[in-house]
């Protein structure tokens, strides 16, 4: 469903992604790991349509469409969802109001009727339960004053409501305690289906015990330098990134 070929991306004149290729098939879960600053969030943001990143080469095809041509909202309508590494606080915008507007914009694109307040609330309550979230969060402004864990849950909650085709989770597990981690994983696993793909960015193999990936990739200096099955994550944990770095350097000097 997602085909990234030779992607080169710059920001502020610096090249961050340097020829990244990746194929995600429907129903697959791909984990992306890599040291700080390797370009994981850049990849996630480019896929979601963040304008400050400039694509200088390569292509991204999603469900047969040229993703890079589309506005962020058009990508969302097509089924792309990004759970942000650092969700922004938006004072003055009510969570429920925001989410209802988002969902209804999706439904409109799909030719479905808008949900009324009652049906919306019913849907939302169900999803809240999976994530063990307080209903009171709904009446607060988007992410404002949320704890780190609440913000991450809120991202997964939004994902659960919007039901994307491709979910990109950017370090949704970072900084979570074990209960929150389980909730987040439950939220993700509840969405797993043969027609849905996941790109899970993480630093920690712990998450992958709960969300078991089909593939693990290592992103290093803007390129995927190693790919494998879920055992690669364990190997990484045991040997550290220096192991991959050495391999990458060795490959470079050849």
């Amino acid at each position: 469903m997602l085909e990234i070929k030779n992607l080169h991306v710059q920001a502020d004149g610096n090249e961050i992604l340097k020829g990244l290729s990746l194929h995600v098939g429907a129903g697959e879960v791909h984990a992306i790991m890599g040291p700080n600053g390797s370009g994981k969030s850049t990849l996630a943001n480019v896929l979601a349509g963040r304008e400050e990143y400039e694509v200088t080469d390569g292509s991204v095809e999603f469900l047969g469409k040229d993703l890079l041509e589309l506005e962020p909202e058009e990508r969302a309508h097509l089924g792309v969802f990004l759970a942000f590494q650092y969700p922004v606080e938006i004072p003055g915008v009510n969570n429920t109001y925001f989410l209802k507007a988002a969902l209804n914009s999706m439904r409109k694109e799909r030719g479905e009727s808008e949900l009324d307040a009652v049906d919306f609330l019913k849907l939302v309550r169900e999803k809240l339960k999976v994530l063990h979230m307080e209903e009171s969060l709904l009446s607060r402004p988007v992410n404002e004053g949320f704890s780190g864990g609440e913000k991450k849950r809120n991202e997964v909650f939004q994902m659960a409501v919007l039901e994307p085709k491709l979910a990109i989770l950017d370090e949704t597990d970072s900084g979570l305690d074990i209960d929150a981690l389980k909730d987040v994983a439950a939220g993700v696993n509840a969405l797993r289906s043969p027609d849905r793909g996941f790109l899970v960015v993480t630093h920690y193999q712990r998450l992958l015990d709960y969300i078991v990936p089909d593939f693990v990739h290592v992103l290093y200096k803007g390129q995927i330098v190693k790919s494998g099955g879920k055992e690669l994550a364990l190997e990484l944990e045991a040997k550290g990134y220096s192991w991959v770095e050495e391999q990458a350097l060795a490959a470079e000097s050849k």
Partner: protein
Amino acid sequence: MTHVQDTLHPFALRFEELEANRSADGPEWTRRLRRAAMAAFSEVGIPTPKHEEWKYTDVRELDRMTLVHADETSVLDAGPGSVSPLQAGSDETILRVVLLDGRFAPTLSDLSSAPAGVRVEPLSVVLREGRAELESHLGSVATIEDHPFVALNTAFFQDGVHIFVPAGCKERVTVHVVHIAGASDSSGGRANVSHPRNLYVLGESAEVRVIEEYSSHDEGSPSDRIFLTNPVTEAVIGPNARLELYKVARESSQVFHVAGTFARIDRDGHLDAHNVSQGGRLVRNDLRVELVGSGGGCVLNGLNVANGRQLMDDHTEIVHAVAHCASREYYRSVLSDESQGVFNGKVFVRPDAQKTDGIQSNNALVLSPKALMNTKPQLEIYADDVKCTHGATIGQLDPDSLFYLRSRGIDAEAARRMLVHAFASDVVDRMAWEPMRVLAGSILDETLGR
């Protein structure tokens, strides 16, 4: 000395004309007051940007106006301005006062449902009847020495609204005052200057809600013709009394709106003053509150939505004269195109005003690179046991928030709208009267939809 007349300011000249024709209308003290006011105005004249208080706000065009005041012979046509966007809920009794170019329009007004003891009347009637009750109040809160435009208003006012609520009145009265500029035609042409004058006197524990709405009807007049609306409102708020005041400026881009609102608050009294400005070439609001009884308080809450080349200027002054008073001030400006905003917030805490609790905040959202905001807090504190804070921000729409909303499927325009509403939300939500919140919301939508 020849041609003395030529050097007289148009307003002074006009005053002479009116004086000559003025039969002995109103009591002697008002004529004295008018003459003193004219003298005070003539000393300063129309202020220039050299005056500290008018640094960013250039009103010198008013010097070149050919003045036409409405009079008894005027042919009235309120035009679309008389249809207010403010529609009250059905369960609310509202007294409606319509003023056309500063003159009371009886046929458009409805004062029939005032509760017993409460008087809502045209100021001109009270003056004509020579009732003494005005003398002690009129000009006592808004003094002519303070401000050239207060002096101007005092010299020229024809009419306005007088509200008197006696002590202990248990009903809350709602009065909607609609002022329409450019609604009268007389021999001299379409009226282009008006000086509505309002006086609200609230006895002990009285409660009043007043909506002052300024609109205009100047379609068809040459686009280089300018108008001046120069209202002054005085409020005397008695012990434990509450005034909830809304002022809405939505006149056309030919109108200079230069207004003053002055309140004196006795012990445990309270003022909520909400300002919503949308229209006018220039909107200048001077708002002064004197807290003269302990336990008194005020909330000044303003929303300015400007575009084109509009300028919106708020000068506020809060005087904490005694201890244990609280003042709150929240102003928000949304500036598009080449518009400008000015905020000057003075807070004076006198030596006796211990335990003063003051908060001032002024935030501007600048939607275009050519829009400009000037903000200046001015706190002068002469008591030592006080809590006074102020904060000001000037910023643009946050790109991270915009991206967040869009990434969830909300289109760019709707996302921008959400964020602009969010920016204004705390000020809008503070307005207790629902029709005003609705109006504020649609004003925000309009400025974005353009």
